[in-house]
């Protein structure tokens, strides 16, 4: 069988940043990673001009961004890996937050830390309860079913006094802190960065109005979830999801129990959603149904798709775009949503594969490049 592929343009691509980093020796990579992590932790203290939000507290914004990142990672398992369209993801987020609320304040007084595993478990169970009957429903039908689920959760919160009704639940305890030392911040007001020993953050005090420690906590959780995500995706489980997404019937006939894997994706996604809800509840100390509107599900989905569904770094970027920019550009005031909508459209049109295209597209590119090299090699020989 002669396969023939002729490569015409002999343009030599310069390796992009990604590839160049991938080619670095391991110790350097590790050092780079550590530096990057340190930078992320220091970010709210650096007060970098232009990046720091002028109209809202940067630490608080960063925390919000990190909950979005967490949620996007969870939703990415469902949408990006398993290919299930979920328009009601906020439901799991709410379940997580309310589990904490109910156990720690409304009907109990457990400490926050104890509530978190319960919140994850409850969210996971709710994922299974929703998924078990409905995952057999095909494709886009699932979208409306999940959307319905999200609304059912919200309306139940509004209408059930046991869950606090519209007033919500207040006085949710904060995460436990150990106050060790003060971390100074950087002041740019004079034009040059100066260490500002006056404005400091206590490591680690989970207070009422300083959100930086919460952001740090969220960063740690994100790192853990990321590791989990990488390990699971690069295994039989990840392959099974991908195969199911590609061709469900064929996957089944190749021995993949597709339903169980879809349910698994749903449960894991729900668990991560619940975890972020628990974080949110611990940080705000007060939750009400208004924080779990349908619109949020849509924003979550936008984060995943705009970022590049299936690519964990992409969806992180997407989450940042969706949550950070509206805060950064508060000066658009009334036109914020309009600009945001336009931005979504433009992103969709100009980056149809997402900001960071999913791995499979990259893989295709790499395959092309290899072929290119191969052909050239042959021509040279």
């Amino acid at each position, binding site marked *: *069988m002669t*396969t023939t592929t002729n490569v015409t343009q002999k343009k030599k691509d310069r390796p992009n940043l990604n590839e160049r980093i991938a080619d670095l020796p391991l110790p350097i990579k590790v050092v780079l990673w550590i530096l990057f992590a340190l930078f992320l932790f220091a970010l709210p203290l650096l007060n970098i001009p232009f990046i720091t939000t002028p109209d809202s507290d940067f630490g608080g914004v960063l925390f919000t961004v990190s909950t979005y990142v967490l949620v996007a990672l969870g939703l990415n398992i469902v949408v990006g890996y398993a290919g299930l369209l979920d328009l009601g993801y906020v439901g799991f987020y709410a379940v997580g937050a309310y589990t904490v609320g109910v156990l720690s304040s409304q009907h109990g007084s457990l400490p926050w830390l104890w509530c978190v595993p319960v919140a994850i478990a409850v969210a996971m169970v709710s994922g299974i309860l929703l998924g078990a009957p409905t995952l057999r429903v095909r494709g886009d039908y699932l979208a409306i079913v999940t959307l319905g689920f999200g609304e059912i959760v919200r309306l139940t919160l509004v209408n059930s006094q046991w869950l606090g009704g519209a007033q919500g639940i207040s006085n949710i305890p904060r995460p436990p802190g150990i106050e060790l030392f003060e971390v100074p911040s950087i002041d740019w007001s004079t034009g040059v960065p100066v260490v500002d020993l006056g404005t400091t953050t206590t490591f680690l005090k989970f207070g009422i109005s300083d959100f930086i420690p919460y952001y740090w906590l969220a960063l740690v959780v994100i790192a853990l979830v990321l590791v*989990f995500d990488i*390990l*699971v995706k*690069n*295994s*039989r*489980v990840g*392959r*099974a999801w*991908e*195969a199911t997404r*590609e*061709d469900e*019937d*064929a*996957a*089944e*006939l*190749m*021995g*993949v*129990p*597709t339903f*169980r*894997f879809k*349910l*698994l994706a749903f*449960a*894991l996604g729900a668990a991560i959603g619940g975890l972020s809800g628990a974080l949110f509840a611990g940080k705000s100390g007060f939750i009400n149904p208004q924080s779990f509107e349908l619109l949020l599900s849509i924003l979550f989905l936008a984060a995943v798709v705009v970022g590049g569904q299936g690519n964990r770094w992409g969806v992180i970027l997407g989450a940042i775009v969706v949550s950070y920019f509206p805060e950064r550009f508060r000066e658009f005031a009334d036109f914020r949503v309009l600009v945001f909508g336009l931005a979504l459209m433009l992103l969709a049109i100009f980056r149809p594969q997402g900001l960071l295209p999913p791995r*499979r597209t990259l*893989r*295709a590119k*790499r*395959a092309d490049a*290899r072929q290119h090299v191969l052909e050239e090699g042959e021509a040279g020989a």
Partner: protein
Amino acid sequence: MPEPTNPEPVGAEPTTPTPASRPSTPATTPVDEVTEINPDVDIAPEDIGVPVVAEGERLLEVDTVTLRFGGVVALNEVSFHINKGEILGLIGPNGAGKTTCFNVMTGVYQPTSGVVRYLGKPLGKRHKFQITKLGIARTFQNIRLFANMTALENVLVGVDAHHTTGVVTAMFRLPKHRREEEQGRARAMELLEFMGLDGKADELARNLPYGDQRRLEIARALATSPQLLCLDEPAAGFNPAEKVKLMELIRTIRDQGYTVLLIEHDMKLVMGVTDRIVVLEFGRKIAEGSPAEIRDNPAVIAAYLGVDEEDAS
């Protein structure tokens, strides 16, 4: 299950197609005592109570199977059997019910009446993936690869059929995960090599030429370690030279110890490679016998072969 204990080093014999050794009976996997959300439970042939049959015995039996779609009778009391180690041809005019037969054997459809027995036991209402694990694998008449996965990954999905790595195992990179991953890759590469695709392991399936796609389908099906391999028109779209190569390939597969059920319209190929042939027409079995018998069967000639000077050669 591929070489349960001592994995062969990958690429030991890089050039010549390594024979994809027929996997032995699924051994009981050493269990990592972990409670985990395990998406599946392995079902081995032992579970239906019959040990692996010996060479020449009945592997699968289609017993008076009838399948109706509304008014259409796609299969009408069809009975035949497949012996272990043989290549059985399934031929018949278009719409005779051949693909439908595959679908019944692999759990896509439930027969309206009749049973399919595998290793002596009825398949019953098993899920498709369970049947695959029992040892029946297939390819598709219209290619159905995982288009956006690489060739290697396509095969790995098949290999995974007998793995049990779940979330927890993968998350903590437990020994089971590592072992399965290593052995799986080795076996997948072996199969790719065997099918002559080792150079394309990292190509996306959708970018492969048609012929390679067809062979990748076979590799993927072999990866599930089947006892019975069902090929649905594997030579469609091949030119005569390619068909000859395919014929050799099918023979080699059989020689590895697999049993092969072949649907094909190319008579040279069918006559050249099969041990026995079953002929369907309008959902009914109209003949069964050796290639030579079938070639001269007047009913088959009338219904299917027609008189063709070239094919009659």
